[in-house]
């Protein structure tokens, strides 16, 4: 069976600055894969390149078909949802509206049912369903962003540093939920993270990015004890 995402020789950057020097990775159907790296390693750039937010060169295949050059809003219809860094909740819209927005590309009649289901998974969202998204805490907004992305019923979820700005307890809860969602729905996930520990607990495999180059890859067990992971963060 083909991978749901296969990336090879990916080169991307901003204007004249090349950030990614040609990296490769893959995500199998239903798998959780993490990309680890310190600040500035190019993690966010990677997701943006896959998502079509940046111009990129190389190979980016989604379920066997190339998606290089496609616009972000086109990819949603194809089955990829991207939760950007900083969550990207639309602060002026209510929680309800944000979730409904997540289903923008869907035309079926189960949208309301899905919204109700996500309120069960994230009860705090249900409590605040008519509130403006911007009035919620960081953790709640992160859950909203994830639920919203999942409203599109994607086959692949891209998450950019979901732990950023969140308290440890909240982050732990978040990753537990993510793990549960992956097990229950079979949605593949590509998570880009600085918080190696929690991310590796729910991931099957991972990669380590350092200054735009992949320096390590392996199963999450292997990476938990890998030298390069430690070096990428601590510098020695």
């Amino acid at each position: 069976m083909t991978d749901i995402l296969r990336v090879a020789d990916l080169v991307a950057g901003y204007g004249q600055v090349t950030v990614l020097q040609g990296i490769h990775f893959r995500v199998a159907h239903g798998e959780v894969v993490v990309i680890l790296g310190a600040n500035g390693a190019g993690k966010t750039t990677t997701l943006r390149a896959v998502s079509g937010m940046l111009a990129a060169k190389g190979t980016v295949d989604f379920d066997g078909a190339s998606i290089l050059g496609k616009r972000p809003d086109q990819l949603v219809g194809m089955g990829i949802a991207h939760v950007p860094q900083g969550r990207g909740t639309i602060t002026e819209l209510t929680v309800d509206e944000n979730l409904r927005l997540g289903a923008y590309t869907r035309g079926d009649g189960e949208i309301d049912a899905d919204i109700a289901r996500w309120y069960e998974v994230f009860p705090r969202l249900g409590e605040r369903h008519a509130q403006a998204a911007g009035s919620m805490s960081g953790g709640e907004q992160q859950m909203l962003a994830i639920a919203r992305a999942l409203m599109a019923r994607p086959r692949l979820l891209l998450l950019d540093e979901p732990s950023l700005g969140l308290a440890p307890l909240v982050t732990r809860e978040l990753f537990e939920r993510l793990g549960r969602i992956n097990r229950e729905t079979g949605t593949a996930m590509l998570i880009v993270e600085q918080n190696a520990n929690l991310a590796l607990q729910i991931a099957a495999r991972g990669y380590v990015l350092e200054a735009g180059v992949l320096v390590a890859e392996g199963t999450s067990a292997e990476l938990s004890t890998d030298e390069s992971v430690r070096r990428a963060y601590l510098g020695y």
Partner: protein
Amino acid sequence: MSATTENSGDPIADLLPTFAMPLTPRWNVFGRSVSPVPLKAGITFLLIVAALQIPQQLGKSDVNLFSEVLCLAIAAMGVNLLTGFNGQISVGHGAFYGIGAYTSFLLVADHEWSFPMAALAAAVVSFVVGLLVGLPALRIKGLYLAIVTLALAALFPQIVIRFADVTGGTSGMQITKQETPTVYDFNRPPSDSGLQPDQWRFYVIFVVAMVCLLLVRNLVRSRVGRALVATRDNETAAEVVGVALARYKVLTFGISAMLAGIGGAMQVFLNGSVNPSQFGIDLSITILVAVVVGGAATIVGPLVGAFFIEMLPTWLPTDTPQASPVLFGLSLVLLMRVAPGGVVGLARRTWSRLSPKINGPRPGGAPPPMPDDAVTA
């Protein structure tokens, strides 16, 4: 040539003209490092000589047209300083132009001042009004400032009409032999000069325009100039670095208004008349358009832009005269896509493709390249 270092710490002192030239990056011509300064000086000299020939070679109406170009150019220098270099968008400098025009006119016609004094007074009045407008403008950003200045431009002719007993109202005023015999010759050449009126007016306005150009050039290249540009590009960063934001922004408004006022005074010198319909929204738009067409945030842009704006109607075919403003409007719309740096920007782009030059440091603080030249990293 030594670089001047303006370290007096006093922004007012920095405003005084510095006539030493800052370091200009050297050019790479066929592998040899050459200073472009003599070439640029030479070209400037030739252009000035050519300009001075205009009244000798061309007929009266052409000479007057060029004089109008210069008046517009002076005002455009002001808007260029404010909008191009300092990022404060103004669609209302026609009002300051009008203030300069009416001030100088009234002082000459009603109070028999000599024109130089009247022009000076016009400059001062415009400057002060500019400061007054610049103060509230501190709190109004970007597009909102454009709206406010547009409203100002619409308001000015109404103010003129409202005080018709002083300003002559909708019919305007004129200095003629019959009505104001004592000052009638305020803009006539001295009898021993041997010049025709149109020639004399051109030379006077030309000199004033060159002085203004020099002033703006020195201002832009000084420490103050760099502060202005820094403010335009990232206000918060500029403030953090120590730029006295409020002071500079208000001052820039004042100076830009002063330049527009001088332009207006020069127009009075040229035409000897004022009429409120000349100083409305259309004029304000024309000045801004001249800045952008010439090349915002460049030194010679205003001159080039004013030239194009005034000359364009004469170049277009006259069989369908109504088509030309349509074409003009369309070109403006497309200009931002095709040549956002204006004519000067286009020339620079062409030049930098034709001859590579060594990009050394720019200690003199020459204005940064326009967006289409700049590296977007």
